[in-house]
Structures are given as structure tokens and as C-alpha cells.
């Protein structure tokens, strides 16, 4: 999707069309979740601190993020995509891989399909997207980036909208690209590569595998070597299970009491647990992440006896950990993550054993959650939530302060 969060917001605020708009970072601090192409002209990008963004583009309009809405539209998008092929692998809230090998005979060439998808997204969601076509996932992702509108200080280029990497011409497309376009080339790797004179993917492809491994390490080196030759044989996996599901939140004012931490953990747990259930999985491990005011970050994980899917069970698992945390110095960020995701099949008991174990809470709440999920799906997230989360005016995942993670 093109500037997804911003485009969604602009549907509700058409008066802001054509203006630099930033989603996220509306409170005292926090980070940019998304920027319109107009804002990107000034060098504003997602994940940038909002204070930096304000300096670069003082006239930008900051809007609070509305993640529940984005999720909802993401589901609608998925429904559109799935009508073209069952082989849809979502990779984020607004990106997905489609394997259309089998659909071509039925519906037309891949390029025709791309334009049809674009048209339906435009018609049904009033949003625009860019489509990259190639013989593997890695190139398709690069092609879709290439197809997107490009913003620079000079202006906004509309982009190809649909871009196809012609079979046989993969390297001609790939090699002129800057090396940082490759997956797995972050700031550290980029620095290492630049230090040996690598700027484009073509430079990288000219190296021996062993030289590359010497520069960036064995496995990373062979990974990049393969990418440099456009080798990527991963299939589109429609049922790909997320490795973890989590929410993190940076607070506008530091939390200092255990009660505050507890309330936020309840809120985050509820949101994460709901996503865990929606994904049809259960959390084998729950992880609590805390960033203190001095930016020191700690993580603590808990593995209940059996996998859990309910907010109260998450909370019960994390409370003993919370008891060991001294919040007095101030907590800036909290994160709750569900990990080791597996089948949701916690065992049932013949009888309760009058303890308040995590498992037992899980079992007690399982039925209640089915009702809660039903209410939420009918009336929305604001309709029902934990009482301790009511003190806050935001719903889980609707924080204006910073990014929630979408895995």
C-alpha cells in the first residue's frame, strides 16, 4: 500500500490532501509511524523521532495513529487479494506476497492481474497500492518499492504503479540498485560493505562469496551472495505463522508506580492476546519488555505450563515478573510479546484445583473470551475491555504516542 496509514487518515480528512501529514508521534515524544509523500519531500520517514520530524518539516500536520482502523482495512485488503489466488502471504499490515502462477490461466497474465488488483483496491478501499512482479519474492518486493511514488526535495514522482521484472533481465534490474535495498543490509552491514567499496548490488555481485563472508560473516555473507545473484527460492506461504505477536508502547509521561505498570500490562496483554486468538495460535512464552527512563532496556520471559490465549492469563504469567521490577526510576516503554506460538490446545481439567495458576485462569477465561471476541467483532474494540484499562482514554493499540508492532 502507498503511505498506508496516512492514506487511511486522509480518507477521513480529505481537507489535508496534498499537505505534509505525519501519523504517530502526536504526544510529547514518540516516533513517526508513517509520513505522506509530501512530508517525505522534507526527509521525514517512519521510525524517525517526532521531534526530529518537526524540525525537518515544521508545517507538517501530526495525526494520532488509529491502529484498529488500519487492521480492519488490512483485513479488507486481504479479502480482495484472496479472491485472486489462495496463495497470499501477508508480511505486514499493508504488504503481501501473492503466487499467481496458477491464476494466470484463469484470470489473465500476471501483469493484467496486477492492474486488476490495483483497480479493486482503488474502487473498494479508495486507497492506492503498488505492485511488483518478478519470479521470486525477493525481486517482487524490490519491484514493488520501485513501482511506488518517489518523493524527493524536487517533488513527487508518481511511480510505475505496476512494475514487472522481466524474466531473464533480473540482474539488469537488480545490479544498479543501491546495496542497502537488499534485505538484511542494515546500517551496520552497510557500513562494512561501504568500507570495502561496495555501493550497488552490482558491486556486491562482483565479489567472491568468500570475500563477502570475510566482510560480513559466514551465513550473512552467503545470504547476501545469493541475493546479489537474485537467488531466492522461498515459496509463498499462505499459512505462514508469525514468530511472535506483540505490542509495545512508549508513554508520554514515564510510569513510576507498580499499579500504573500493572494497568498498562493488562491493556497490552488484552490487545496481544486478542491478536493471538485471531491468528488461531497460542503463546508458549510471554515476554515483558521494559525500557527505563535512562533507556536501559530489560526483557523477561515466562513460559506457562501450557500455551495461553487469554489476556488475564498473560497478566497472571507476567505479574510475578512485575513484582521484581522497581519502577521508581521511571518506565518509558512497555512491551508485551507472545512468542513460541503454537497450536491453541491447552488441556482441560476434570476439576479446578482452587489455585490461581496461569493455566487455570486460562481455562476459566477461555469461554468468556469467545463472548468477548464476539462482542468486539460486532461492536468494535471500545465496546468491551478490562476495567483497569478504562482509566486510560485510549484503547489498546490506539496509542497516539508511538508505534505498535505489527508482526
Amino acid at each position, binding site marked *: 500500500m502507498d503511505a498506508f496509514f496516512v492514506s487511511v487518515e486522509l480518507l477521513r480528512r480529505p481537507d489535508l490532501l496534498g499537505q505534509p501529514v505525519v501519523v504517530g508521534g502526536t504526544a510529547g515524544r514518540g516516533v513517526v509511524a508513517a509520513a505522506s509523500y509530501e512530508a517525505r519531500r522534507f526527509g521525514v520517514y517512519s521510525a524517525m523521532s517526532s521531534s526530529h520530524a518537526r524540525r525537518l518539516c515544521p508545517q507538517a500536520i501530526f495525526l494520532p495513529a488509529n491502529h484498529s482502523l488500519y487492521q480492519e482495512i488490512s483485513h479488507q485488503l486481504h479479502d480482495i487479494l484472496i479472491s485472486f489466488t489462495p496463495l497470499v502471504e501477508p508480511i505486514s499490515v499493508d504488504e503481501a506476497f501473492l503466487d499467481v502462477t496458477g491464476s494466470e490461466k484463469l484470470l489473465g497474465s500476471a501483469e493484467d492481474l496486477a492492474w486488476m488488483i490495483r483497480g479493486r483496491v482503488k474502487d473498494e478501499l479508495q486507497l492506492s497500492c503498488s505492485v511488483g512482479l518478478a519470479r521470486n519474492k525477493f525481486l517482487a518486493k524490490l519491484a514493488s518499492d520501485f513501482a511506488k511514488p518517489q518523493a524527493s526535495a524536487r517533488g513527487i514522482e508518481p511511480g510505475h504503479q505496476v512494475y514487472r521484472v522481466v524474466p531473464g533481465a533480473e540482474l539488469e534490474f537488480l545490479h544498479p540498485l543501491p546495496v542497502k535495498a537488499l534485505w538484511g543490509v542494515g546500517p551496520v552491514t552497510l557500513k562494512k560493505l561501504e568500507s570495502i567499496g561496495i555501493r550497488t548490488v552490482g558491486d556486491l555481485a562482483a565479489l567472491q562469496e568468500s570475500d563477502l563472508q570475510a566482510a560480513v560473516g559466514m551465513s550473512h555473507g552467503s545470504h547476501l551472495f545469493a541475493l546479489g545473484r537474485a537467488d531466492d527460492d522461498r515459496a509463498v506461504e499462505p499459512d505462514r505463522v508469525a514468530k511472535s505477536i506483540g505490542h509495545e508502547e512508549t508513554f508520554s509521561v514515564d510510569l513510576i508506580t507498580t499499579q500504573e505498570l500493572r494497568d498498562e500490562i493488562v491493556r497490552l496483554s488484552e490487545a496481544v492476546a486478542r491478536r493471538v486468538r485471531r491468528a488461531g495460535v497460542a503463546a508458549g512464552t510471554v515476554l515483558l519488555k521494559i525500557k527505563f527512563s535512562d533507556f536501559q532496556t530489560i526483557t523477561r520471559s515466562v513460559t506457562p505450563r501450557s500455551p495461553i490465549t487469554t489476556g488475564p492469563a498473560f497478566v497472571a504469567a507476567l505479574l510475578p515478573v512485575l513484582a521484581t521490577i522497581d519502577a521508581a526510576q521511571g518506565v518509558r516503554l512497555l512491551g508485551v510479546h507472545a512468542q513460541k506460538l503454537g*497450536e491453541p490446545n491447552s488441556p482441560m481439567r*476434570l476439576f479446578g484445583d482452587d489455585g490461581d495458576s496461569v493455566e487455570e485462569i486460562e481455562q476459566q477465561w477461555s469461554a468468556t473470551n469467545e463472548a468477548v471476541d464476539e462482542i468486539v467483532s460486532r461492536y468494535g474494540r471500545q465496546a468491551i475491555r478490562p476495567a483497569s484499562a478504562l482509566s486510560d482514554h485510549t484503547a489498546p493499540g490506539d496509542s497516539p504516542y508511538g508505534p505498535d508492532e505489527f508482526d
Partner: protein
Amino acid sequence: MKFRSEQAELSEALGALARIASARGSSAPALAGIRFALQDDTLTLSSTDLDISLQFTLSVGGDKNGDGLIGATLINDIVRSLPSGKVTLDIGADSANITGVKAQFSVPVMNAVDFPRTAPASANPVTMQAAVLAHALGQVVGAASKEPAKQHLTAVQLSAGQSGLCLAATDSYRMAIKDLPGINVLTFGQSYLIPSRALRELQRLLDANEEIAIRFGEIETTFETSRLQLTTRLINANFPNVQSFIKAAYANKFTTAREPLIEALRRSRVLARENTPVKLTMGANGMRIEVQTNDQGTSTEDIEGQMSGAELTAGFNPDYVREGIEATAGDEVTIEMNEPNQPAVIRGVGDPTFTYLLMPQRV
């Protein structure tokens, strides 16, 4: 003190004593030892962790009377490692010499002052056949909880039922119940919760052809045979009302051969990891056993059997269901259920004395 014994006999006793002794850390060092006491040709070996005390009486070739305490793990490892044949122990004030066929060890002796002297429960003994008790324990002990935090569920309940002794254990996911009609060691209304750890040990050590005497005390119970005496503290807690879980009749009943089912469940366990349920579909055409994992593949196996009632699919913890089938006696087993989310009842065909209740898992 000094005596001669057979390696095999001594090793068996030391193994059991070491399991009791080493169970509790270093709060009292003497508890990590095994006490040796020789009177003429009678050797008494004892260890305790204060909850359970175990004492063996062995006939040996006595040489010099006396006593001494040796680290349990150490002496057990040494004697176990020796070749079979004669073993001589010579325990002095500071060190003990262990001489087996070809090998000799010399190890330090522990301070025995802190070793507790335990007396057996003073209640009057009741007796029953050791083989009967051992078999019954083998069927129920496995269902007891192994989580120390749920102490009352780590017990096996011995109670007087309508017709005799009743043994029951449960970890809340499953429950094993054994009736021993005609064994009237308890009077109606009496009930004791005995730690399953003690009973597991007892079951291993019982010989088939002997009598066992049981002294049910207020806070301790003692089991005694001619060569061993095991005293255990009782657990004082409420135990679920066992009979309330068993229904008089079940709507659906599947009958099949026991061994093939156990083998099929073992095979399914290859894919079914800890939390993956095994899905059993029972119908007129037999039973289908399926495992589906997220990322490790799937397995399917069909076995024969007869169904009365309607076809039924339910998921189970693969170990719990297999252990239940294994605990039944006889060549055939029945699995009875009313609904896929209500407890299943496993019994051996022709054996109404053993019942295994198992809660299904969602699949």
C-alpha cells in the same frame, strides 16, 4: 564395623536409599547419607529426607558390629559400578573401605550425629498381599501430579470403598481409580493421602510372594515387609470426591485390542510434541489416530475396533491417553465418552476394578 554381602542385593537397596536421601539439598548434611548398622549377621541400612524414611534389613556375613554414615550418592555409585560377586565393607571412624571383585575404594565417613532416628508409626498393623498392592499401585501412581506446588494432588488416596480398599490418584487432567474388593484394611469412611513419591518407591521394591503390613497412623504411615520398612508423612488436605466423576453409563463405547492401540499411540508420539493433541476418531469402521502439527508434518493411523453409539472425535494428550491404556489389564480396552468435551473413561474389558478418566483437549 565390617561385613560381606552380594553386590546385586546391596546395590538394589542402596539405589532405593539413595533416591530418598539425595532428594533434599544441603539443609542438613547428614540427610545426604545412608546409615549402616551391623548387629551380628543383620545389616540395617537407612536413609531419610524427613518426609520419607526407608530402612532395609539384609542378611550379610558379619565380621565386626558397629555403625557409620556414608554419602548416599557416593556409596551407591561405587557399589553399582562393581562387578557382581562378593563385596566387603569395612567402615572405620574416618574412612570406609569398599572391596569388590578386583576393585577397592576408600571414601570418607560422614558425621552421623545429626542423622535422625525415625520410629515406625505405632498404629496396629493390617496386612495384605504385596503383589496385590504392587499391581494396584502400578496402575494408579502414574496419574498423580508431579508438581510439588499442588501437594494434595501429588498424593495417592487410600480409602475404604463400598466393597474394599480403593486407591485413587489424579493430576486434575486425568484420574486413575482402582478398587480392591475384599481387601478390608481400612474401615468405611477412613481415608489417607500418601505421597506418590513414597508409593512409587514402594512399588518398585515389593516382592511378589510376601505379605506387607501397613500401619496407618495419624501423621505417618508405615509399610513393612520382611526386608524393608518405609515410613512416610501423610498429606493433610482435601482430595476430590472420586466417585462423583464416574457416570453409571456412557452413550458411546469403543472397544479395541490393547497392544495395537498402545503401539499406534507410541508411533503418533513421534510427531505429537508436548502440547500437540492426538486426535482420535472412533466409529463403526474402527479408530483413526491423527496428529497435525504446525510445522512438523502430520500422521494418520487406522486401527480396528467396534463402536456402539455414535461416531465421536476427541483430542487427547498423547502421553495421558497412552498411559491410561497401558494401565489397564487384559487384552482389550474400552473407551467410553458422552461428548467430545467431556471426560473419557478407559477400562480393560472384563476388569471392572480399574477406571481411568481422562479429560480431552480441544482439537
